[in-house]
């Protein structure tokens, strides 16, 4: 599709916004709709569009297959690692309350993290979620876990795209 000027221009215009939207869905999934899985598929869709319009070679340069395979494994590792981290902090596996820092384990996170960050202006939970340096345990855990999901989903879908697109017709 190298000669299709309209396709190339439109894809060039659209892809940055698709990527930006994927990042928005990823990191705003706790407030707006979406989350790791949705962000991952949107991100992969942008890379696939790039590959379709600009060729497989260009897409391989942007997202090297080896890097994608590593990121796919890294995503699962981040997710499971969050569970292990909460165990190391004295909670159960994937019990994010334990990640909130000392004194958070049994408070059900109702206690804001303000004790840890005195300069934090507001005490309400919502403001903490967006303005605090360290979100509450639950919030932090969900964000990290969603990041793991997003990495794995995007990387695996791009990998599958490469696997399919690299095939030629069997003789």
């Amino acid at each position, binding site marked *: 599709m190298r000669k299709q000027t309209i396709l190339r221009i439109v894809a060039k215009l659209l892809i940055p916004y698709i990527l930006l939207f994927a990042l928005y869905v990823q990191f705003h999934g706790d407030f707006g709709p979406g*989350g790791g899985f949705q962000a991952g598929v949107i991100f992969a869709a942008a890379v696939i569009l790039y590959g379709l319009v600009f060729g497989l070679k260009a897409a391989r340069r942007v997202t090297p297959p080896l890097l994608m395979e590593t990121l796919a494994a890294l995503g699962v590792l981040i997710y499971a690692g969050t569970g292990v981290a909460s165990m190391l902090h004295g909670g159960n596996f994937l019990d994010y309350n334990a990640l909130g820092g000392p004194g958070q384990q049994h408070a059900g996170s*109702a206690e804001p993290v303000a004790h840890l960050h005195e300069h934090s202006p507001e005490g309400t*939970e919502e403001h903490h979620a967006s303005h605090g340096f360290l979100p509450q345990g639950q919030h932090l855990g969900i964000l990290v876990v969603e990041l793991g999901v997003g990495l794995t989903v995007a990387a695996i879908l791009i990998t599958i795209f490469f696997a399919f697109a690299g095939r030629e017709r069997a003789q």
Partner: protein
Amino acid sequence: MTPEAVTQLIVILLLILLLGTAITIVRIRDLWAAVMLTGIYSFLGASWMLLLDAPDVAFTEAAVGAGIATFLMLGTLALTSRRAKPPQGSSLVPLAVVIVTGAALVYGTFDMPHYGDPQAPAHQHVAPEYLSDGVPHVQGGPSKVSVPNVVTAVLASYRGYDTLGETVVIFTAGIGVLLLMRRPPDREVKQ
């Protein structure tokens, strides 16, 4: 017309379009057109899900169903034939099976609670707890999760084990595709 009536109208229009697309996919013999129509079907489905207040599912349907799945089917089509073989023999028995199954499914929906019914069992069991935990200003209770998007909170926190399992399943699926379909490295070098 009230906004609700307009929404109803759009929903009915979308469902008619979905039905028409589905019937066309079944009848058409040109597989390339059929793949394109499945993409359109997914996109219509995503629009409908958006009207049902399920934007998360709509995102997924639009990106996976209309985008990635369409591409994967086109990639498969490039390796095989473009036209479906005409069906062999009578299609009366399959038709009867489909009608009976469909009728049983429709009959099953008669027992389901109405859409959006607050008394539905799904909204009586654990949902109130999730809502009061996740959305502090709705019921005034202390927030346990402090993630306003309850869907995200349920998926990532309350159902964290399930989501971990799903992530591993996706990872495993990708490994499987790699093992089956990746070209041997020596041919990749020649490319």
